[in-house]
C-alpha cells in the first residue's frame, strides 16, 4: 500500500541545501532547464545529472527522490524505444538494424538517450529544490521574484494537493479491497480514480468558497507568515549560478563540435541492447505498477 504513495513535497531535513534560501535553488533549477534544452551533448547533460546527484546526496533525500524516479524513469525509457524507431531528428537517418517492420536508427538512439538525459537532469534539480523547501517558503520566494500572487497560489496549492491525492487514492483502493475487489490490470484500478477525482473537485470547490470567504480576491499587498531572508551567501550563489550558466551557454552555442549527433556512433549491439533494455524496463515497470497497486 505504501508503494503507491510518492511524496513530491518537502522532506524535512537540516542539510546545507535545506538551509539555502529557496531563491538560489529555484534559479539553479531554472538555469538547468534552459541549459538542458539548449544542448544535446550527452556529456554535458550527463555532467548536469551528476551535479544534481551530488545535490541530492548532500540534501540526503535519496530515498524519496528514488521513489519518484522509480516511477518517472521507466516512463522516460519509452523515449528511447520510440525515438529509436521514429527519431525527432532531421533526416537523413542512419539505419542500424531492422527488426520486422521497425528499423532502429543511429540518430534515434542518440535522440532518445539525450532526451532521457535532458528530462532526468531537469527533474533532479526541480525535485531537489522542491524537496528541500518548505511550501510556504517557496510561496514567499516566488512572490519575491515577482510571480503574480494568484498564479503563485495556484502553484503552491497544487504542490500541496499531490500528496493528499496520493493518500486518497490509497484509501479508496483499500475500500474497494474491503469489498472484495478482484481482478487485475488497469480496469481494476480505474474505478478508484473516480472517487479520488470527484473528491479532488469537491475539495477544490470548497477551497474556492473558503478562500473567497476569507477575502482572497481583495486588493492590497499580500504577506506571508514565513518570511524568506536572502543573505549575502544566497546572492553569491545566485551570481555564481548565473555566470556559470551564461558561460556554459556561450560555449554550447559557439562550439559546433559539441554536436555529437553524427559523430557518436552506437555499435549495433549497443543500440539493440539499449533499445531492448528500455523496452523491457518499461514493460516490467507496467507489470510491477499493476501489482503494487493491487497488492493487499
Amino acid at each position, binding site marked *: 500500500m505504501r508503494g503507491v504513495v510518492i511524496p513530491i513535497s518537502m522532506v524535512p531535513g537540516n542539510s546545507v541545501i535545506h538551509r539555502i534560501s529557496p531563491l538560489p535553488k529555484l534559479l539553479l533549477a531554472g538555469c538547468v532547464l534552459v541549459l538542458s534544452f539548449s544542448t544535446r551533448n550527452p556529456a554535458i547533460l550527463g555532467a548536469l545529472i551528476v551535479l544534481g546527484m551530488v545535490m541530492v546526496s548532500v540534501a540526503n533525500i535519496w530515498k524519496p527522490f528514488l521513489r519518484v524516479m522509480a516511477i518517472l524513469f521507466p516512463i522516460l525509457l519509452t523515449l528511447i524505444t520510440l525515438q529509436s524507431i521514429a527519431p525527432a531528428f532531421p533526416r537523413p537517418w542512419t539505419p542500424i538494424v531492422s527488426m520486422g517492420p521497425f528499423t532502429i536508427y543511429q540518430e534515434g538512439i542518440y535522440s532518445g538517450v539525450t532526451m532521457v538525459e535532458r528530462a532526468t537532469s531537469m527533474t533532479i534539480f526541480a525535485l531537489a529544490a522542491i524537496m528541500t523547501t518548505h511550501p510556504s517558503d517557496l510561496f514567499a520566494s516566488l512572490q519575491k521574484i515577482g510571480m503574480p500572487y494568484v498564479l503563485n497560489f495556484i502553484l503552491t496549492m497544487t504542490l500541496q494537493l499531490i500528496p493528499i491525492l496520493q493518500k486518497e487514492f490509497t*484509501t479508496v483502493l483499500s*475500500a474497494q*479491497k*474491503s*469489498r*472484495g475487489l*478482484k481482478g487485475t490490470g488497469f480496469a481494476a484500478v480505474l474505478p478508484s480514480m473516480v*472517487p479520488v477525482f470527484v473528491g479532488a473537485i469537491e475539495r477544490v470547490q470548497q477551497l474556492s468558497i473558503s478562500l473567497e470567504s476569507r477575502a482572497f480576491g481583495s486588493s492590497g499587498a499580500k504577506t506571508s507568515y514565513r518570511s524568506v531572508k536572502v543573505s549575502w551567501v544566497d546572492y553569491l550563489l545566485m551570481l555564481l549560478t548565473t555566470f556559470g550558466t551564461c558561460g556554459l551557454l556561450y560555449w554550447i552555442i559557439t562550439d559546433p563540435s559539441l554536436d555529437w549527433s553524427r559523430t557518436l556512433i552506437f555499435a549495433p549491439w549497443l543500440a539493440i541492447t539499449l533499445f531492448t533494455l528500455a523496452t523491457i524496463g518499461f514493460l516490467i515497470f507496467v507489470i510491477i505498477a499493476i501489482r503494487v497497486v493491487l497488492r*493487499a
Partner: protein
Amino acid sequence: MTNPVIECQNVWHIYGGSVTAVQDVSLKIYPGEIIGIIGQNGSGKTTLVKHFNGLLKPTKGKVLVNGRDTGPMRVQELSASVGYVFQNPNHQLFARTVEAELEFGPRNLGLPEDEVIDRREKAIEFFGLEPLRHSHPYRIGFPLRKLVGMASVYTMRPAVFILDEPTTGQDNVTTRIVYRLIHRLRDEGSTVLCVAHDMILLAEVVERMVVMRDSLLIADARPREVFSDRALMGSTHLLPPQITELTLRLKEQGKLPQVSLSVSESLDVFAPLFGGKSEGGQA
C-alpha cells in the same frame, strides 16, 4: 464455549515507525456479540478495527479471524467474512450508480446473478434508497451517502459487520435506519462492532463496550457498568446519555435501585417513585 470470531493477541500498531495508535490490545469477540467501541478522537478506535478485515496488519502481536492469522491474508479474502463500513463514505463509494455500488460486493463474492439482484433489492428497500437507485453516489447528500456505504457492505452479508461512526452527522431519520440495521444484524446472528461517539445509540443497542484511551484498551464491560464508572468515564472525557446520568445520580442518592440506559427502561425504573405502574414506552 464457542470459538471467538475475532481475537487480538497483544496487538500493537505503530504508524510510520513513530505514531503508536494501538498498544498491546488483547480482545476476544464471539459470534453474535454487539460491541460498542468508544474513546476520544485519536484514541485508536479506527486503527484497531481496521485490523479486523486486514486493512491494517499489526506491527506486533497477532489478529485471528475465525482462528486464522490475518498476517498473510489479503483484504479481499477477509472481506467475505468481515465487512467494514468506512467512517468517511467518500472513501468507500466509487460506482456510477447506487445500484452498481450495491452489486459490487456480492459480484466479487462470485454469487449468481439472481442472488446479486435479490440482495440489491432487499438493501434498497431496507435502507430506503428507492428514489436514489439510479443516482450517482456523489450526487446525493452526505447522510444518504453514508447509508449507501452501509448498504454496500450489507449486501455482502458478512458474519462480522464493522460500523465506524455510523450516526455521526446523521439526522433523526437516517439514525433510526442505523438502529434498525443493528437490530436486524443482531436478529440475523451477525457480530456487530460499532465505533461511535453517540452514547445514546450505544446505550440502546450494544451489550458490551470496549473503551480506548491513548491507544490503550482501558475497559471492556457491559454499558451499564461502563456508564456507571465515573472515574473511567471522566478519565477519557466521555459523558453517558443524560438519562443514564440522571438515573445514576438518583441511584447514588439512594432514590433508585438501578441505573437505566434508555427512556423506556427509565419509565419502568421510575414507576415505583411515582407510585404508578409503567406503561412501557417508545424511545
